[in-house]
Every structure is written in C-alpha cells, then in structure tokens.
C-alpha cells in the first residue's frame, strides 16, 4: 500500500549531481531511500536547480551567491513543475512529504548556508560558519508556488549527510518521524531549524 508521495531532492537518487567533493556514494543515497520505501512511500525526484544552472563544475556556494533574479526565475520555473506534480497527488487525497538536503543553498528545508561576504577567489577555509536556520532558494520558491495555488506546504525532513555533524541514525530517525506524523500539509511558514 502506498502511504503517500515523497518528493525527494534530486541527489538522493543521483549523487552524480552533487558539487565536486560532495558525493557520498556512487549513485543512490540508499539509507534515506530505504526508509521511504520500507515505509511504503512512492518516490518522486525533484530536479537539481544548481546542476542545470551552474553545471557540474560549480563551486560550493552559499545562499547569497544563488540569490539573484535570474536564478530565482530558474527556480520558479522548476518549482512550477514540481507544484504541478504535487497538485495531482493532492487532488487524489494522497499524503505528501518533502525530503530536502540540510545545509544546501537550494534544497535546505531547515538548514541552509549563508555568508554574505563570500565571493571572489574560492579560498575559504573548511569549517567556515556558514550554516544557518532557513530554507534554500528552490525550497522557498516551491513554498511560494504551492501557497499561490492554495495547496499549503508539505511536511519536511532533511537529509544531513552534507553536514560535518552528520549522524546517520539521527538522520534516519528524523525521516521516519516525519513520515509517520501523518495529517495534511498545513505549514504556514518555514519550519524552525532543528539546530
């Protein structure tokens, strides 16, 4: 039986889309996918906004570097497609969850990355304090598109494998918790950061 539909960040099925240095495995990030499938959720893969915009050779970036009108328009177009898909499932009465990537400037659902001063030659040190509470650009645009359509916003969970503080068990527990919360999508604003 299908419990509902999980719209997942592109890289959960395709780590090849990651920024150089970010792929944790060859293809499918199976820990998260296994949780979804074991719980009976249908999987729908969202697009990677960064891959099509800045390509495979992109640098690691923070929100501010992607927060431009042109990238917003790009994300809005992609978000409309995802919202079209979500709308189909909502009309069928199916439960929806959104699985993002914490720390991502595009796909973060509770944690994104921010550094207003970042730019120029990319020589920032590891461990720069860039993580901050909030959503990535694409997730923001998807929220706006769903709200514009009166669909509300799904429950969210974030995979944490890009974070230095990644705890595999906590990641899976978070996913499992969100899948089993049940109920209808009804968030009125961005979720509070978990950390």
């Amino acid at each position, binding site marked *: 039986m299908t419990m509902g539909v999980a719209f997942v960040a592109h890289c959960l099925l395709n780590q090849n889309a990651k920024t150089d240095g970010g792929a944790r495995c060859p*293809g499918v990030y199976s820990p998260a996918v296994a949780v979804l499938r074991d719980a009976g959720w249908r999987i729908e*893969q969202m*697009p990677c906004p960064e*891959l099509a915009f800045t390509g495979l050779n992109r640098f690691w970036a923070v929100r501010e570097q992607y927060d431009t009108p042109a990238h917003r328009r790009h994300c809005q177009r992609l978000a409309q497609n995802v919202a079209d*898909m979500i709308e189909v499932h909502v009309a069928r009465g199916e439960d929806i969850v959104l699985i993002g990537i914490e720390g991502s400037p595009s796909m973060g659902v509770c944690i994104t990355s921010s550094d207003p001063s970042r730019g120029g030659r990319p020589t920032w040190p590891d461990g720069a304090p860039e993580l901050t509470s909030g959503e990535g650009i694409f997730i923001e645009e998807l929220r706006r598109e769903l709200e514009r359509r009166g669909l509300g916003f799904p429950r969210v969970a974030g995979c944490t494998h890009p974070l230095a503080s990644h705890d595999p068990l906590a990641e899976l527990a978070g996913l499992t918790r969100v899948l089993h919360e049940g109920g209808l999508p009804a968030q009125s604003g961005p979720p509070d950061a978990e950390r």
Partner: protein
Amino acid sequence: MDGDARGFRVALTADGYVNPAPGGFDGLAVLDAEGWGVMQLPAADYPAATRARILTDLAEQVLEFARHGYSIVLVGEDAAADEALAAAGLPAPPRACPQNADELRAFLAAAPAPDGIGPDAAAAASGPGR
C-alpha cells in the same frame, strides 16, 4: 574529485522501475547496487504538458552529464523522453526494458564506460566503492 564517491553513471529511469507495482521488479534496487545514479522520468499519468516541461528540463541536465563524459543509459520506454533528449541535441542513449534484475545487470554491465573524466575519476567509476 578527492573524497567524492560519485560513479559517473546515470540511468534515466522510467517511473515503473523506481516505484514498482507490488511484487513487481525493483529496478531502483539494482541500479543502486550497481552504482548508478537515477534520473527518474515522470510517470505517464501526469498531464502531457507537465511531462513535456519536466522532460525538457531533465534533458538539459542530461546534457550537462553528457558534456562531462558521464555514462548515460535509458531504462524503460518513453517516447516523450526521446523527443526531449533529441531536442536538446543528445544522441539516443543505450536503452533496455529489463524484466528482471539479471537483465538489468547485464544491460548495465554492457553500457559504455564513462569517458573523458580523467584517470582519477575513471578509477573511481570502476565500482560502487562503498
């Protein structure tokens, strides 16, 4: 790509292999085990206009992988995907409609290796490495 575990292999995959019917063949599990990334094609029951827009965007992303020499295959039949790939200027990738895990494994094993990604990347692409 120090510390990067990507496989440089991408399978455009029909929805039925990602979300198989109960008791059906689970293509995603095989693709995972064989170290392939998946780009899921939209299910056939979405509106045609929605599918067309999604496939146009998807083809652009496939183009980026192709440009960098990643190995690309198509698992399943999808005429609209073929059109989108052609419109993006991509050659038709190797394709199959496997009915079981052995058929999919054999198809993936025969797929062209990643090309033009440098010796380090090619070594990383030689196996799942997990």
